[in-house]
């Protein structure tokens, strides 16, 4: 696999398709993002089951440059979502798609987002390395479990989790879709929420962060994995992704031309909550 990735990367440099390539290299603890600017360096690329950062996060830094990205299914879907939101031009990004075998934590356990991954193979790519992999069709069993709890239990679970947060914003910075010039959490005028670790501030931060992801999140799970405090947050965005699918029939990151549901309006939109 890794030889194929390096070969395609080398070719892309030789053919002038890319000026820079974002991929994974060997880190000191696990795979780490690397930025390759010449073809001689493509041998630094690696691929293993610790490549869990979503590399699409870095793409906006290289706008205006022909940028290559080694992308697993979820990374590629975030690239598509960024294109759909006019943050990138399709022709500026060269996607070396890698069908993903699933990523694991330091104990060798597969991450939740990978366990239920529907799109291990990038739906959009310029070149695909390796055989396509089938995704799972389980329709968010983890979310159903959360939904089955009574409201007060859900609130309790949510509150206990967010209490661990120290507001370092690793979740936000690891997310390709958190690209606002000014995050609502940083705004001083108006001050949408207070600084500090009061329960209400933490609840506010996590709820609004999740809501801003509705129909934009690729279920990559990088936010939760970035968290140094082990706060569970993935179930929130996964719940919203499930809702967006049920209400609008929309799945993020499959088609760069499809308008994201929150960026459009249709008279056919369901309004079941009114009646």
């Amino acid at each position, binding site marked *: 696999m890794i030889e194929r990735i390096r070969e395609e990367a080398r070719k892309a440099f030789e053919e002038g398709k890319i000026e820079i390539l974002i991929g994974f290299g060997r880190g000191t603890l696990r795979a780490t993002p690397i930025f390759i600017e010449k073809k001689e360096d493509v041998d630094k690329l690696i691929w293993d089951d610790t490549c869990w950062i979503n590399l699409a996060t870095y793409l906006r830094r290289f706008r205006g440059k022909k940028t290559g990205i080694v992308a697993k299914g979820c990374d590629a879907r975030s690239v598509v979502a960024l294109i759909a939101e006019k943050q990138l031009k399709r022709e500026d990004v060269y996607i070396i798609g890698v069908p993903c075998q699933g990523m694991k934590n330091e104990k060798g356990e597969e991450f939740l987002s990978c366990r239920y991954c529907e799109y291990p193979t990038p739906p959009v790519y310029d070149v695909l390395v390796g055989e396509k992999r089938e995704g799972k069709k389980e329709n968010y069993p983890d979310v159903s479990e959360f939904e089955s709890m009574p409201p007060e239990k859900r609130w309790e679970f949510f509150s206990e989790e967010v209490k661990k947060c120290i507001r*370092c914003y690793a979740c936000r*910075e690891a997310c390709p879709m958190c690209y606002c010039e000014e995050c609502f959490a940083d705004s001083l005028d108006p001050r949408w929420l207070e600084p500090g670790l009061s329960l209400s501030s933490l609840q506010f931060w996590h709820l609004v962060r999740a809501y801003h992801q509705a129909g934009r999140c690729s279920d990559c799970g990088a936010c939760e*994995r970035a968290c140094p405090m082990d706060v569970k947050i993935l179930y929130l965005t996964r719940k919203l992704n499930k809702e967006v699918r049920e209400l609008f029939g929309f799945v993020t990151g499959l088609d760069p031309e499809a308008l994201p549901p929150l960026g459009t309006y249709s008279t056919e939109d369901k309004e079941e909550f009114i009646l």
Partner: protein
Amino acid sequence: MRRIKKEAIEKKLKELAKDYRIFAPMNGDVKETGGEFEECFPRLSGKCAFLPPEEEILRYKDGKVEETPEDKPIILFGIKPCDARAISLIELAMRDEKFPDVYFLRKKEKGIIVSIACKEPGDTCFCTSFGHGPFSTQGSDALLVEKDDYYLVLGNEKFFKLFGEGEEAREEDKEYFEEAKKRAEEKIEKIPIDNLGEKLLSRIEDPVWEKISRKCLNCGACTFLCPTCYCFDIQDLERSWGVSRRRYWDSCMFSIYTKEASGHNPRPTHRERVRNRIMHKFSYYPYLYGEFGCTGCGRCVVYCPVNFDIREVLKILGGSG
């Protein structure tokens, strides 16, 4: 060196919870406890005791300013020697002649710090690089070394007055101490730091900073978990009864940290922000206070989402990588 029964110290600590606020590693983080502690390398460091993530410093109420009253004195117990050292490093900045930080210092002056020697350092530790190590006493009122059901204690009067004096350590205890210390120190990687401050200063415009900093996401995980990072922000918050002036941990990794009212940001990208974090710890700090602003605890290595490894950065910039 003294030797004191473990259970005597543990019992005393619980008794002291009446008159002191006890902070200790518990369930993986340093937090306030009723005198309980667990032996671990906590994720949130000992700085939480003296510089909490959030604290009120004064109130404006009924047209008057009220200083937040002093709380009970603090005992920070059971942390690793690197965390105790870290607090003494923070103190160097807080003891600034012109602007001493009264809120930190009043806690620190009455507080007691008891560390437990680090017999099993981790793979990401590099504390010996800075001339200290897993058995360092700097910043501790007492250093405890576990031996069977005793603690061997190197402590000061402040500690013995509170916890009792136990008995004089035996010859074999001293041998045990030296051996355990040597064994622990040998496990730790040493990063060369000769003239590091000067080297960094001479490379401030080096293009290498762009390369080093590229993968940094500019979250605050490293700085919040760092036991020596002490930056804070002060904000006035409206309350039904008036105004609460509070301070919060802040991070030089955030873009808004240096954003000015005009909108101009003197540290606009990851390059300037990462450079500042490294320069502050390894160049400005030794220049101002004669010590590096890092204890080599390795938290920023372990918890960085993108595996930004400060050891590698120091090797590159220090000329050995």
